């Protein structure tokens, strides 16, 4: 048995080693170029010349749809200086910024997966004006520069640890009762669809309590029943960036609740709903420093092709 197992392990190692040693077929520059080409094609409503794989998956706000439909038909402009983050190891690149539909700006998060320099997956999230929920007019919005800045070696964390920190954020938020399963920097701020949810007075959560950690420590997000379909397709260790995708379910079985500090709160939406989120996390010294994202209000418990 021992011999067989060892033989198996040797075989596994042999199988694994070329992949581990293999240089990604598309590096950061290559991934960035493909994302830029995609956006140029999108704005021009021309998709046929893009480097498509044989089987392409495409979603907009969680719905599987053909390339050429939906935003491909409505877009009129895209931001000149978006935030782009790449992960050559996973072959993913994310473009995050502002687009316009018939002149109306919207927040746009787009993930591309590239295999052998061909696009095989396109996942997009749009935060649009007029939809209930967080939204600040997107004119002039730019993702914070901190996400592009490299960390000193000491402030960096291994890929797995970074994902665990973000996973811990979702675990803290889900059925939030004050227990923290992650760590935050004291300056942590979270911005979704251009609105700070942890500072200022523009969002119901920020009005109720300030700060990433404090909000979770008092159980402000108790109405979050589940954070599901969690995925972490982009990790940039040098910059301390993780891009996470998730579906946040609010069953709305109750609409008022008490936080651990004794305050009573009213839920902003009093019917079952789900938020589809693409969020970028900045992690330094093992702590979440900043979160920025785009969210779409979706039918309750909606699933996507990516979650299965």
């Amino acid at each position, binding site marked *: 048995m021992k011999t067989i197992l060892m033989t198996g392990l040797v075989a596994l190692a042999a199988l694994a080693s070329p992949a581990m040693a293999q240089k990604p077929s598309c590096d950061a520059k290559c991934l960035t170029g493909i994302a830029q080409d995609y956006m140029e094609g999108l704005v021009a409503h021309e998709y046929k010349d893009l480097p498509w794989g044989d089987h392409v998956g495409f979603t907009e706000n969680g719905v599987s749809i053909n390339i050429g439909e939906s935003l491909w038909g409505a877009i009129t402009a895209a931001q000149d200086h978006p935030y782009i983050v790449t992960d050559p190891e996973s072959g993913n690149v994310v473009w995050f910024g502002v687009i316009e539909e018939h002149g109306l700006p919207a927040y746009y998060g787009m993930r591309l997966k590239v295999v052998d320099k061909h696009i095989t997956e396109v996942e997009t999230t749009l935060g649009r004006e*007029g939809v209930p929920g967080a939204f600040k007019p997107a004119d002039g919005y730019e993702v914070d520069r901190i996400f592009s800045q490299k960390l000193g070696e000491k402030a960096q964390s291994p890929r797995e640890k970074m994902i665990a920190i973000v996973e811990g954020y979702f675990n803290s938020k889900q059925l939030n009762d004050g227990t923290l399963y992650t760590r935050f920097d004291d300056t942590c701020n979270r911005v979704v669809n251009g609105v700070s949810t942890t500072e200022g007075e523009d969002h119901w959560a920020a009005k109720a309590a300030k700060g990433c950690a404090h909000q979770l420590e008092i159980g402000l997000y108790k109405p979050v029943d589940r954070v599901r379909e969690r995925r972490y397709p982009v990790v940039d260790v040098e910059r301390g960036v993780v891009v996470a995708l998730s579906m946040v379910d609010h069953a709305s079985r109750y609409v008022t609740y008490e936080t651990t500090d004794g305050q009573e709160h009213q839920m902003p939406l009093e019917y079952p709903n789900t938020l589809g989120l693409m969020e970028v996390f900045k992690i330094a010294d093992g702590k979440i420093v900043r979160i920025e994202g785009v969210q779409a209000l979706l039918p309750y*418990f909606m699933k996507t092709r990516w979650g299965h």
Partner: protein
Amino acid sequence: MTGYGYGLLSAGLMAAAAVLAAPAQAQAPGFESAVIKVTCDRDCLIDHARDYVKALAAKDPSRLPLSPHVRFTENNVEMPLGNDGLWGSVSRVRDGALEVADEQTGNVLWSGIVEEHGNPAYLAMRMKVEGGLITEVETVVNRLPDMPKPFGDVDEVVHDPAFNEILPPEERRSRERLVAIADGYFNTVELNDGDVFTQFDDECGRLENGISTTAPTKGAKGGNASSLALGCEAQFKLGIYKINKRIRERRYPLVDVERGVVVASGFFDHANEFDRYKLTDGREMKTVLKWPNSITLLEAFKIKDGKIYRIEAVFTYVPYFMHSPFARPNTDFQTR
């Protein structure tokens, strides 16, 4: 070896296979038996629907005769029945509803008003009953707040009694013709450019989420098509509904030939590839929303003498191009 490999089967296996295969060969696709037996008549189906909303109000699904394999959707998302979605948030079911039943397919519609934590919402619910058990429940729940859409005063909603009236035989049409008339309505809405592919009664009226969108209505707010033209046909001849790129995943699970009623389900895709368009009289229109969206609906048609007389719909927004789990697998949206 003979053709298709039959020669490899023993006589015993072949006999067993024949016994297993026989019932399936005797039925047409989609039918369990060549003889359609009505096991639950209209009253029985409507009782099932009323029991359902009573159980919903009590948040007690255990009262219901649910099939072990019951399928439940809320706004096209499939989920377990009884705890999530409206089942988790409902606080009241109001009396009075539009009720339609189809003894032949075992489907029933209940379309009325519910409340979630005291907030009113429109609920349209299609249920399928087979062998005394509920096998399918498909719901559209229209809630506020949301993007601009009709949402009538729930205290003022009147379901037209015409939906319950039995037609004299000369005003009835066959099941297939009734479906064709409703389908023609969707063909007219799709890419609406003034062409009319169905027939309307001169008095045709449409109630959408409790608001008449074909006649001036008290409480109607902006975006109501009745401010542009009155009457079903006149609106379509004007091309008001041009923004509908597709009416997709059309299904017609309920037909009541005696009463001339068809209930349809589907999606209206508003691609918003343009944000301005012209009516057939030359007037320019601007789309209310600038981005792609779809609406999901359950819509009842009353058809008298081959003409659409009344339409009552409950709809809400869903992400553009969303699908229904009840639509046929591999539905080709080009061919529907």
